[in-house]
């Protein structure tokens, strides 16, 4: 077959190219540009090479924030995934109650991040908040703005409250795709409740759970609004996660160069972890299918 060369075809992809260029490529390249330069304002820049990167890698501040970030993501995954599965398992399978449940479950997902932060910030206040006041009246010491542990607990509860529904809805979708005959066969085979979960429900939920873990990991790794609204990263640096630290550096101190280097490394870390995670999951999946 004869191929006709028609360069005008480029015009068809042009709108997308322009859009992507303005929304991603140009801003990103600006950041790359900043990360190799120093500025003292008035738009005067000096080339500094890899200095910002070297400095950041040596700074304890970044490593501390990264450590907090990893710990946070790990904790919320350990809570939200099992809890979401548990919620999905106990949801009604059909009828009006199932619809009501689904709507109620979706509500937290519709609330904007900063509203979630504000809700819990007020709710937890020791002087006027329902939760904070109740706890202190019960004689339990709780103050998220002074105690680092309390601040962590509050941020974690906030995230669990906000996002467990997502995991539950995904798991519920996985569960409802299981044909009835599987449960009937399990009854005939006299499988215990645990075995039904282990050999029927869990394998069928695997695909959606992989997606849930990936989504929750990426999202929690970039958490900003909730701890910012709650304590602004405090007390001290207790809830200063990577993105809070980044904003402090870029906007608080207006250190454009180091902040740019920080963003790029941050981006690469998320990309790398997600990529490794995804590849491992897919490989396990393929291997099992082959055997």
């Amino acid at each position, binding site marked *: 077959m004869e191929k006709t060369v028609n360069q005008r075809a480029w015009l068809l992809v042009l709108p997308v190219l322009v859009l992507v260029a303005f929304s991603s490529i140009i801003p990103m390249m600006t950041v790359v540009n900043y990360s190799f330069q120093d500025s003292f304002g008035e738009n005067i820049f000096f080339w500094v090479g890899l200095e910002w990167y070297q400095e950041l890698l040596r700074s304890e501040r970044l490593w501390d924030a990264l450590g907090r970030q990893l710990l946070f993501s790990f904790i919320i995954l350990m809570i939200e995934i099992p809890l979401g599965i548990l919620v999905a398992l106990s949801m009604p399978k059909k009828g009006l109650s199932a619809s009501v449940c689904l709507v109620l479950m979706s509500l937290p997902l519709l609330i904007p991040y900063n509203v979630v932060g504000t809700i819990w910030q007020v709710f937890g206040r020791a002087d006027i908040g329902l939760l904070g006041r109740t706890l202190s009246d019960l004689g339990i010491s709780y103050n998220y703005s002074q105690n680092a542990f309390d601040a962590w607990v509050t941020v974690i509860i906030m995230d669990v409250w906000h996002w467990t529904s997502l995991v539950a809805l995904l798991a519920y979708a996985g569960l409802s795709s299981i044909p009835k*005959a*599987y449960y*009937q066969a399990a*009854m*005939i*085979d*006299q499988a215990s409740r645990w075995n039904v979960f282990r*050999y*029927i429900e869990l394998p069928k939920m695997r695909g959606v759970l992989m997606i849930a873990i990936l989504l929750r990991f990426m999202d929690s790794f970039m958490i900003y609004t909730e701890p910012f609204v709650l304590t602004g990263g405090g007390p001290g640096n207790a809830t200063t996660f990577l993105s809070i630290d980044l904003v402090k550096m870029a906007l608080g101190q207006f250190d454009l160069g180091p902040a740019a280097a920080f963003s790029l490394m941050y981006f690469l870390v998320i990309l790398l972890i997600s990529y490794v995670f995804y590849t491992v999951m897919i490989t396990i999946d393929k291997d099992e299918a082959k055997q």
Partner: protein
Amino acid sequence: MASIALENLAHSYLPNPGGNNDFALKEVNHIWEDGRAYALLGPSGCGKTTLLNVISGLLTPTSGRILFGDKDVTASSTAERNIAQVFQFPVVYDTMTVGKNLAFPLRNRGMEAGYVSERVQRIAQMIGLEADLHKKARGLTSDLKQKISLGRGMVRDDVNAILFDEPLTVIDPHLKWELRTQLKSLHREFGHTMIYVTHDQTEALTFAEKVVVMHEGRVVQIGTPKELFETPAHVFVGYFIGSPGMNFIPVSVTGNKAHINGNTIHLHHDYGNPQGDILLGIRPEFVRLSKSDGLPVQINRIQDVGRHKFINATLFDTEINISADEGFEIESDMVKITFDPANMGIFCDDWRLNGKAIDHGNGGTV
């Protein structure tokens, strides 16, 4: 092992069933004798699967009782009933190997390892999966998966009954014969009570010693394949068994005579004076074409299917089928038919009437 008795058993999927039509399974009384092979035959949606699930305990019946031997198990769980069931579509535990799948029902009952592996080997050999025991069940074809399901159904040797719910639907035709034969030999070997649900009459008639025919949630006849063929108890059985099904001709009956359009057909039995919708039933195999005797027909078409010829004809507005042997020569002036008197049945409002035997010296053809 014990016989399974159904007493006034009925089931409805509605919470408050009203009339008869709300019942997916209408009242049935039946005893499944210990160690026999039954087929449950009927078209889709006639209540076969409902009946099966009630027996295995997956469904609790709306009314009536189920007895295993003398023991009332109506409220017992599936586990307590100790019944095996194979479903229409393959159910395998994806993450387990074939061997573990087969061992699963035994492990769940806490059998010892030696016994388990011996049984698994034996069953794997029977269904031809010995070589695949260490493969993951997930990547297998649906043929093989269904074989695993069958194997899991047969792996326990102490079950009260094995129920099959159209188990060969997804199996290739050439394998169907093979597997059905294996099921039969398994039945001979172990003597389990087997109930085999199907909508395929060939499958039912070749598998079972006794066939239970269901129609619209009701058991209409229980009998050997021969009885179903020769003396169907209900018009539906006549239609459903045999290919083509039984011919039904509207007649009126007094005593041992049936009247149709001014012609009289002599019957073998005395039916008194039945009122209602009266039909004369006769299988295509027992209708003969002739030149001079009998009732006049108009021949519509003739089909030659190899071993038989099927003739479609019209008898006083009723379409009837006639089956003739391959060697039978059909001539153009054969425009009359006769019925074999021994094989005629009279049906009143869909049910077969049992006539009184009478002495009829001259053989009583038409």
